[in-house]
């Protein structure tokens, strides 16, 4: 379980300059602000006949967002192939998560799917995710996006403190 692709990464502020520049590049090229999670609603619209996924911003589901989210894994692949360490296909989440999440694959799959469900529901309830609210929205100092970003961080702190500090204190995991 401990084999995992090790990608190289830049210092945080350099990564921030790169992603902030990317946001502006996409905007000035196409006019669309950066956002990812709405694209998953477009994917739902392809499989579901629910009117919700065929009205408003889901009226036309075959839009740019679909191609954009198909492109993201390609970028991850290129990033891994251009890193010195080899690409490893595995279910490991790295040493920290592997120390608290179940090692058995079915249980781990359940936890990760559950996490994904929370992210999917939460981003739709909040109207955006880390890209749409915490990058595009914060770049406008938009008050709802500031509130949503604070909520994202609060939720992250709660669950990680629980996983890494509370559970071990109770003698579970860790």
């Amino acid at each position, binding site marked *: 379980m401990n084999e*995992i*692709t090790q990608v190289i990464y830049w210092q*945080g*502020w350099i*990564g*921030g300059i790169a*992603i*902030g520049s*990317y*946001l*502006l590049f996409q*905007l000035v090229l*196409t006019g*669309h602000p*950066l956002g*990812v999670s709405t694209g*998953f609603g477009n994917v739902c619209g392809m499989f579901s006949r629910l009117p919700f996924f065929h009205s408003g911003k889901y009226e036309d589901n075959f839009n740019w967002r679909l*191609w954009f989210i198909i*492109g*993201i*894994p*390609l*970028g*991850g692949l290129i*990033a891994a192939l251009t890193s010195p360490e080899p690409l490893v296909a*595995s279910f490991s*989440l*790295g040493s*920290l*998560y592997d120390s608290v999440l179940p090692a058995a694959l079915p249980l781990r799959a359940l936890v990760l*799917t*559950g*996490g*994904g*469900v*929370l*992210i*999917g*529901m*939460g*981003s739709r*309830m909040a109207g955006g*995710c*880390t890209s749409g609210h915490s*990058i*595009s929205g914060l*770049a*406008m100092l*938009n008050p*709802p996006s500031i509130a*949503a970003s*604070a*909520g*994202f961080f609060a*939720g*992250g702190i*709660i669950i*990680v*403190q629980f996983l890494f*500090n509370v559970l071990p204190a109770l003698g579970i995991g860790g």
Partner: protein
Amino acid sequence: MADIAKNDGAAGAAAQGSGARIVSGKSAIGRILFLGLGALFGFLLSRAGATTYDFYPRLFLFQDLQLLWVIAVAAGVGFIGNQIFRLSKARTLISAAPARYQGKPWKKGLVPGSLIFGLGWGLAGACPGTALAMLGEGKLGSLFTIAGFLIGTYLHGYRQNKKIQAGGS
């Protein structure tokens, strides 16, 4: 706001040609463009450290603020750029529409939704963009996380649909 609407009207007329098809992903060039933009964004997420799982617990345990720096600096660069675009009345390169966007509105579920999102973010060590990039890096746990995104998004749509129907009848 009124300024944006006025500009949109003018640009809308100018964008009736191929530009509109490209930026909406309705042409072959447009699809390749957004595929390429997605790849560039995924690559940068990876180089920013956002696809490295360990940075998520380290952030929320306040041990390493790598990802906070990424978000803060990206938002700062974006803010400066947005001001420059606004003051220079910049237009988009492809469709010549104003290079501006509207902020997301307040909505009823925003605060609880953002907390729910955060719980999933810390639990799965990924957000919608990074899980996709992780998949390309061979981090196969993201398959489950992505399946979860679709289930969660669908559940939200299902609930909203029920509400609409209950309100209508």
